[in-house]
């Protein structure tokens, strides 16, 4: 909402400096966005004294003026009739830009230099006289700023209004707040209607078929008007707040809307079929051309203002081309109505049509302001359009506006605000903004908010007014009494942060990607047609093509991050992300949200350096990260199994493992498939994992019970066996586990070898078993025998051989 300070001052006495006023507005809840000087553009226009005139040698109608502009004399070509020697005139110097868009430069006009322009009122946007240049009067000196010479200034205050304050969508509304700052009252413009004749009932009628959508409709007639340009003061008011003058009738309706907040509409009475008004809903599919020359398709929910035959306006939204006021108009029907805010909003949304009128109607105009506004406009039309006011108003209303009574208790107010106001203070504050207050008893009052404060419905609304007017910053700072025990921190955020710390410790940097991804991401990741991750949540109104669905995997995000960083020459990357994926259930229920953790490692483990050569990361590096994480979290019973061929998606055949914890599949780890990499514009190998964090968190033990550290020494025995290449190393451990030999503490594989002298198709695996007893020191011989048995058993079970046997 733009407010001209000079316009506002017509209704309220303002004693504050502009900056203080702007601050006061902000602190009263009318947040000031910007304060600008309206006539700043006049700064490059100075008072010039014409010291000499000679005819332009090459043009009969132009003259060459010598103008003293204070610090120098300039030549200016001028074509005005009224230019003469020894007068003071406004001179726009090079660099000045005028409201009509002209930027003054140094020109050559018909062969003569012209260093500036002598301006008329119209050219400077300060008056309507365009007949000649402006001749300045009074005590003047060359070089003075024009704004000082003519004493013109105005400040435009832009207010970012919250949707509840529809009462401030008018200059008077804002003036009311300004007046309250110094406890004065707004001066409402006096309305004196001109003499009226005849009777409106003779000429027109109003029929409202949908009173719920149009609780009030008032009409007036003004005949014998002359449509033409508005006087300058009216145009100037509108221009000051960024509105374009059109003609006197339209300008008056706009002026009154900006003054009072009540949108008005003027119809050409003679273009209304049967000269009457019918308010009804449109028919589905009905077409209507609005003032902006666009054809609109209507629905039966949209309220239309019609004449005896057809729609002439979309009620409260925009008038129609078919009843527009133009130069030929002589008789006007003026409309001032109260429309249902929800209905207006629906229509406005459906048509994508936001106007000054819809903005006010959907927030709620003063239901009691209808008549004042129509009378104010009638008065101005009669004054400025030279018309004849027809006697009487048609005021069609559903019933009188209910007076809203809100009881307010002083104790409740102080309890909510933490203040110590007495009844007198509260009463005074509310009265300062035109609330009616009737005392009930020592601690309570009955409050009647004014009709324009449609946002005040409850005692709490009144308490806010009290707080606002006394100043939020004057409310004492206190601290709440915390009752009850504070709760134990919830597990999820705590454990999530732990996992983050673990990943940070492993050298992974956290990334956060958008939750929405490209619609084709499931294809990009090779998800199977029946993969549940293909049930994506789609956004109806996405911003861009690559943000149309909610992700069902974090992998597109981390691959995208890899792409961005490689394009920035960061080729070695260790990143992880924790975030939700969204699996669609069905249309009308919420999707399943699962928190996941994903990591990506690409490039080298460590760069070439003075102490080591470069090493590229591989599968075992990223698997080690997971093992390290599980180990830190004390999660046990983890198995990594080769991802079955048929369920492979974004990982490479043979280089992918499913991660199971206690037989629950919780994720995948592996090398990214070549094809998938290239879809993401990537070439270098990347290793990723994606785990279900929710499942993982559930597996973290709540308690840890310590065990005694071993008292007796361990004995180590190594063995090497040769087995089929296809047997996974883990089968050694699995088989030994099956033996349930208590003395076996751990098994560690320390070497794997393929090639000569091992026969093709086989590999040798060397492992170390640690033996320990919890009750005694083991005898070497005993362990040797045990180890021999275990190895022999293994050889049999795995169809293996010992190195010597070959």
């Amino acid at each position, binding site marked *: 909402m733009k407010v001209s300070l000079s316009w506002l001052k017509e209704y309220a006495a303002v004693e504050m400096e502009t900056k203080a006023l702007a601050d006061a507005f902000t602190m009263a809840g009318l947040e000031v966005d910007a304060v600008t000087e309206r006539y700043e553009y006049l700064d490059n226009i100075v008072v010039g004294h014409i010291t000499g005139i000679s005819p332009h040698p090459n043009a009969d109608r132009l003259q060459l003026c010598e103008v003293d502009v204070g610090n120098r004399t300039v030549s200016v070509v001028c074509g005005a009739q009224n230019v003469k020697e020894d007068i003071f005139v406004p001179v726009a110097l090079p660099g000045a830009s005028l409201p009509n868009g002209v930027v003054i430069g140094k020109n050559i006009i018909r062969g003569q230099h012209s260093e500036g322009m002598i301006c008329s009122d119209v050219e400077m946007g300060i008056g309507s006289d365009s007949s000649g240049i402006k001749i300045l009067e009074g005590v003047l000196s060359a070089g003075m700023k024009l704004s000082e010479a003519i004493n013109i200034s105005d400040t435009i205050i832009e207010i970012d209004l*919250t949707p509840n304050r529809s009462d401030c969508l008018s200059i008077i509304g804002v003036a009311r707040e300004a007046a309250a700052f110094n406890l004065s009252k707004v001066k409402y413009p006096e309305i004196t209607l001109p003499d009226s004749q005849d009777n409106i009932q003779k000429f027109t009628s109003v029929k409202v078929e949908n009173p719920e959508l149009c609780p009030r409709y008032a009409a007036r007639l003004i005949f014998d008007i002359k449509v033409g340009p508005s006087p300058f003061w009216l145009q100037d008011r509108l221009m000051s707040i960024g509105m374009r003058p059109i003609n006197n009738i339209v300008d008056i309706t706009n002026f009154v809307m900006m003054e009072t907040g009540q949108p008005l509409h003027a119809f050409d009475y003679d273009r209304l079929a049967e000269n009457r008004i019918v308010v009804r809903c449109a028919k589905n599919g009905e077409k209507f051309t609005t003032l902006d020359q666009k054809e609109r398709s209507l629905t039966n929910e949209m309220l239309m203002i019609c004449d005896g035959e057809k729609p002439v306006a979309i009620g409260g939204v925009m008038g129609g081309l078919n009843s527009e006021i133009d130069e030929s108009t002589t008789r006007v029907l003026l409309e001032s109505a109260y429309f249902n805010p929800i209905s207006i909003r629906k229509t406005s949304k459906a048509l994508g049509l936001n106007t000054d009128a819809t903005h006010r109607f959907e927030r709620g105009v003063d239901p009691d302001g209808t008549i004042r506004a129509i009378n104010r406009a009638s008065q101005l039309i009669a004054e400025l359009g030279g018309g004849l006011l027809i006697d009487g108003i048609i005021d069609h209303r559903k019933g009188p506006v209910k007076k809203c009574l809100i009881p307010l208790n002083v104790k409740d107010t102080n309890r909510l605000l933490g203040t110590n106001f007495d009844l007198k203070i509260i009463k005074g504050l509310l009265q300062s903004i035109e609330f009616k207050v009737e005392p009930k008893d020592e601690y309570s009052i009955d409050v009647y908010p004014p009709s324009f404060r449609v946002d005040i419905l409850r005692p709490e609304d009144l308490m806010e007014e009290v*707080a606002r007017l006394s100043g939020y910053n004057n409310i004492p*700072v206190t601290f709440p009494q915390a009752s009850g025990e504070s709760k134990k921190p919830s597990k999820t955020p705590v454990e999530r942060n732990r996992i983050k710390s673990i990943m940070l410790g492993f050298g992974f940097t956290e*990334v*956060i990607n958008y939750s929405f991804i490209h619609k084709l991401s499931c294809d990009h990741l090779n998800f199977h047609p029946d993969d549940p991750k293909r049930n994506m949540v789609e956004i109806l109104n996405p*911003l861009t093509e690559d943000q149309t669905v909610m992700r069902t995997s974090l992998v597109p995000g981390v691959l995208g991050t890899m792409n961005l960083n490689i394009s920035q020459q960061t080729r070695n990357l260790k990143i*992880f992300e924790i975030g939700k994926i969204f699996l669609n259930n069905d249309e009308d229920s919420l999707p399943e949200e699962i928190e996941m953790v994903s990591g990506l490692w690409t490039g080298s483990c460590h760069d070439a350096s003075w102490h080591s050569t470069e090493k590229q990361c591989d599968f075992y590096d990223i698997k080690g990260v997971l093992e390290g994480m599980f180990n830190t979290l004390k999660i046990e019973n983890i198995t990594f199994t080769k991802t079955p061929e048929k369920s492979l998606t974004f990982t490479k055949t043979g280089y992918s493992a499913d991660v199971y914890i206690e037989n629950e599949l919780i994720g995948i780890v592996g090398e990214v498939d070549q094809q998938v990499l290239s879809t993401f514009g990537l070439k270098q190998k990347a290793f990723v994992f994606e785990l279900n964090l929710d499942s993982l968190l559930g597996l973290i033990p709540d308690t840890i019970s310590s065990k005694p550290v071993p008292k007796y020494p361990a004995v180590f025995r190594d063995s090497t066996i040769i087995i089929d290449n296809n047997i996974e190393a883990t089968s050694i451990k699995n088989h030994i586990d099956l033996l349930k030999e208590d003395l076996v503490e751990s098994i560690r594989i320390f070497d794997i070898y393929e090639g000569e002298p091992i026969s093709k198709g086989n590999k040798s695996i060397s492992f170390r078993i640690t033996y320990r007893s919890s009750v005694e020191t083991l005898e070497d011989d005993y362990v040797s025998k045990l180890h021999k048995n275990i190895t022999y058993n293994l050889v049999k079970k795995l169809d293996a051989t010992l190195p010597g046997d070959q």
Partner: protein
Amino acid sequence: MGKNINEIKNEALKELESVADVNSIKELSIRYLGRKGIITQFLRNLSNLPKDERPAAGKEANHVKIFLDEQFKNAIKRLESKSIDSGLKIDVSLPGRPSVQGSMHPISEITRQICDIFTRLGFSVVEGPEVETDFYNFEALNIPKNHPARDMQDTFYISENIVLRTHTSPTQPRTMEKQDPPVRIIAPGKVYRCDSDVTHTPMFNQVEGLFVDKDVSFGDLKGILTMFIHQMFDSETSLRFRPSFFPFTEPSAEVDIRCVMCKGSGCRVCSQTGWLEILGAGMVHPAVFENIGYDTSVYTGFAFGMGVERIAMLKYEIDDTRKFFENDIRFLRQF
């Protein structure tokens, strides 16, 4: 026959004393004990001795050989342990073998700091769904359909009744539905609005707070937020409360802090105002309590919400909010 074995031994020991690095000792060792070394040579020459002298001389020579070998080895060991202790033998200016930690995302870090402060003040952390029903995101918060307040937030729609939450405020009704007062929660999380420019990303992060109990006042809200700001920034940072409008609070307030960049004198960050808008807050609207079924004559409460990006930008002097989700590692590694 040349020198006797004891002379050789003494010479060797003398030479050993004069050298001070491992390589020289090794050379010395080879010169005496190597295949063509002096002692080896000596042993070979024993065959020139009379037969009966040979065993005694051989034995003595072998003793010397073992003795010298030990001396050389010990000398090397001493030097090596010395070189580690004294630092004489390393170049301290060479970079060490790296132990590199990753970096926490600045948004996570700030969220953690905010939650830590409120946890210390007795709040517990709760979380809610990011895809939300129209009911929890709007209706339960006193924002009915077709209310102009809906324009305050550009909403991503999934269907007519399902949206991407536009704020963390749905955690308020969701929490109150499940428990009776007192309520003291803090709810961090991602939120979504269809808006994208230098100051807006379609996804961003908020932290919501809710405190409901008997006799909780606006003054208490000011107290808690003042305490928070002082811990988050510093105790010199002053706050300003301005009236505002949120459909689910009444009275509602915007909270500004003194610009942390210019300390109030006016700069680009605060648009010359000296103040930075940082929080929205207010007393829980009675309509919200009524929807839940809390007795408004007994309980009052306050709620607040803040943008994590905004605070992170101020704390870390970041000028473009889009940087948070680009994930350029050179940006992220700074935190």
